[in-house]
């Protein structure tokens, strides 16, 4: 049989190899593989941590040791051998870094390849970037400007040293150690991450941005981010990442905690493009992330994510709407291709009165991938007049991929209003042909249609991120543009 339009499309889509698969050659300081109490003590010692944090880690390790890896997700993968992973890897410090000029030229090169050179970011978009290479932050910019406003934006390790009271006060309050298997693991072994504190009434004047990158072969990444928006403050936080191509699976088990105090607003945007493995599903990053925020009175948290990477993704950015009149939002585009598997969605836990949540999830599946939306909307008895609106759409690019929707709704208050819409559609050959008949080539047509489909989510991203997100969608699905 002649190859059909779809076969060709499929080939193009699946024939795209990972563009950001390169490794930076940087001298690293790595702990021998394995996990036990001594390793945790060593991590803590290397980071000169206070006693309370070591105790906290050891407690988490104890909790984790008694837990089992969860199996309820619609995912199939060999369980990572957690004893074969090295739990600490830091680029060796040559000297103290006072300015960007002193940053390792290899790092600068990496950033340039990614199109995110700090210099350019600083000059063009006014974004303060905290660049995380493996586990230790090596460059932080705009700190002085933020400091004038009392905003703290630094690595978590630095925050532990400089602002221990803040860290101690909030760490583990949104995602408790025993929340889940990987959150417990992260609590025991996290090496670094970002910390952000916005003081009362302060509106952060720029987008805060962190780029994650997994770099050391065989190194698990256990980032931990803590973001505290004090009363009446506002911040928009961007997280984006790409990873070098690897043959073995790499585990990433991050924890992100957001505390949004009374009348505060937090926008948290993610563009995620970790190595998804090759066409047979070899290699690729395992991304088991716990992201959660808590909203106090009249506060708001918006999660926006564009996910195109990882071999296996297990991720549910969630909101606990504790305060009356608080708002939670979740906007997501998740693309899976080849053998990728994603089980992602959100949880909206309504506790306060008149709490509102919105969920817009757009899944795009291609190749032989499996893309699942799993969401929970839970209205507690006290949440009088709570409202939720959910839209879960799936777009299929091939006959061999799968899209699944698992929406859970638990309403324990009769005044709750919950709306749920879901659609599944196949990318229309008619739509592609219509574009072609107007002189738009096939690849561009697919790009146009997919971007149109994801528009409701892409529109929620900050301008400087929207461009990168569109680029990622294009790279993931079009075949040659990029």
């Amino acid at each position, binding site marked *: 049989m*002649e190859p*059909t*339009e779809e076969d060709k499309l499929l080939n193009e889509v699946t024939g795209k190899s990972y563009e950001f698969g390169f490794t930076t050659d940087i001298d690293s300081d790595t702990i021998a593989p394995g996990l036990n109490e001594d390793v945790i003590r060593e991590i803590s010692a290397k980071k000169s941590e206070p006693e309370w944090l070591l105790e906290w880690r050891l407690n988490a390790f104890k909790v984790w040791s008694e837990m089992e890896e969860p199996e309820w997700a619609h995912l199939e993968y060999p369980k990572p051998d957690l004893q074969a992973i090295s739990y600490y890897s830091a680029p060796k410090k040559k000297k103290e870094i006072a300015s960007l000029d002193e940053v390792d030229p290899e790092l600068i090169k990496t950033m340039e390849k990614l199109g995110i050179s700090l210099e350019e970011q600083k000059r063009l978009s006014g974004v303060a970037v905290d660049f995380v290479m493996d586990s230790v932050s090596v460059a932080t910019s705009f700190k002085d400007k933020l400091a004038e406003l009392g905003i703290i934006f630094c690595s978590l390790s630095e925050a532990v040293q400089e602002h221990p009271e803040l860290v101690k006060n909030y760490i583990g309050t949104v995602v408790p150690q025993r929340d889940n298997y990987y959150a417990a693991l992260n609590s025991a072994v996290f090496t670094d991450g970002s910390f952000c504190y916005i003081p009362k009434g302060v509106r952060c004047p720029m987008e805060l941005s962190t780029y994650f990158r997994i770099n050391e072969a065989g190194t698990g990444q256990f980032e931990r981010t803590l973001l505290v928006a004090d009363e009446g403050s506002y911040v928009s936080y961007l997280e984006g990442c790409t990873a070098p191509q690897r043959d073995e699976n790499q585990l990433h088990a991050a924890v992100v905690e957001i505390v949004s105090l009374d009348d505060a607003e937090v926008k948290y945007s993610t563009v995620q493009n970790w190595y998804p493995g090759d066409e047979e599903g070899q290699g690729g990053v395992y991304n088991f992330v716990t992201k959660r925020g808590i909203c106090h009175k009249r506060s708001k948290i918006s999660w926006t994510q564009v996910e195109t990477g990882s071999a296996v993704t297990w991720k549910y950015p969630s909101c606990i709407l504790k305060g009356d009149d608080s708002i939670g939002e979740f906007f997501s585009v998740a693309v899976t291709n080849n053998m990728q598997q994603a089980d992602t969605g959100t949880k909206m836990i309504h506790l306060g009165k008149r709490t509102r949540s919105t969920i817009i999830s757009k899944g795009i599946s291609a190749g032989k991938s499996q893309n699942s939306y799993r969401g929970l909307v839970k209205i507690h008895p006290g949440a009088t007049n709570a409202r939720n609106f959910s839209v879960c759409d799936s777009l299929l690019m091939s006959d061999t991929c799968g899209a699944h929707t698992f929406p859970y709704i638990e309403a324990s208050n009769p005044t709750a209003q919950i709306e749920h819409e879901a659609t599944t559609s196949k990318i*229309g*050959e*008619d*739509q592609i*042909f*219509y*574009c*072609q*008949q*107007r*002189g*738009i*080539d*096939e690849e*561009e047509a697919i790009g*146009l*249609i997919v*971007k*149109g*489909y*994801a*528009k*409701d989510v892409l529109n929620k991203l900050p301008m400087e991120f929207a461009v990168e997100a569109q680029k990622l969608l294009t790279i993931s699905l079009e075949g040659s543009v990029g």
Partner: protein
Amino acid sequence: MLKIKNLHAKAGETEILRGLNLEVGPGEVHAIMGPNGSGKSTLASVLSGREAYEVTDGFVDFDGVDLLDMDASDRAREGLFLAFQYPVEIPGVSNMNFMKAAVNGNRAHAGLDPIKGTDFLQKVKECASLVELDGRLRDRSVNEGFSGGEKKRNEIFQMAMLQPKLAVLDETDSGLDIDALRVVSQGVNAMRSSDRSFIVITHYQRLLDYIVPDFVHVLSGGKIVKTGGKELALELETKGYDWI
């Protein structure tokens, strides 16, 4: 402009076009009529390069190039336009972004730089007024929530934007009330010129009162069985197809 020789095409295992011959000269308007299932829309699809149809024999020369050798977008860029019978909706893609991508796709093919924003908007304004397409429709997603008449007007608007050498109108009159028919026809007539040709596929003579053809062909069983002037359409209207 267009020379179709002995064209055979099938959809799946069914042969639909069975040795179709047609020549269309520059500036000419050809109407193609015929009973249901005679292959009218298949002809439009085959000419524009829809992959669901397989050409098994024949040759199509389009202004000196081998039409069947090109993919659908290149045929469009060479100046072949199809006004769809059922224009599709593309949610989330604004009519303007779509049109810009189309115009620039055509320009790139002709070795031109992308169109300037101001020039584009000026052109949009001119072409939209041709078919009384209001601003509201221009800013909406492609055909999404458009009425039948609005969709057809949008087709003619796109045709005006792209200035094709040959336009194939596939049952453009279907689903149109008399006012919309008048507007659409005026748009088409305004675009008639000595170097632009039209193939008008229709069931009804009514459209040909507005868009007066130079030739009328009757398609039956996958080939053209009768050709005449515009009066042939009137004859078909009264007598039906059985007498041919």
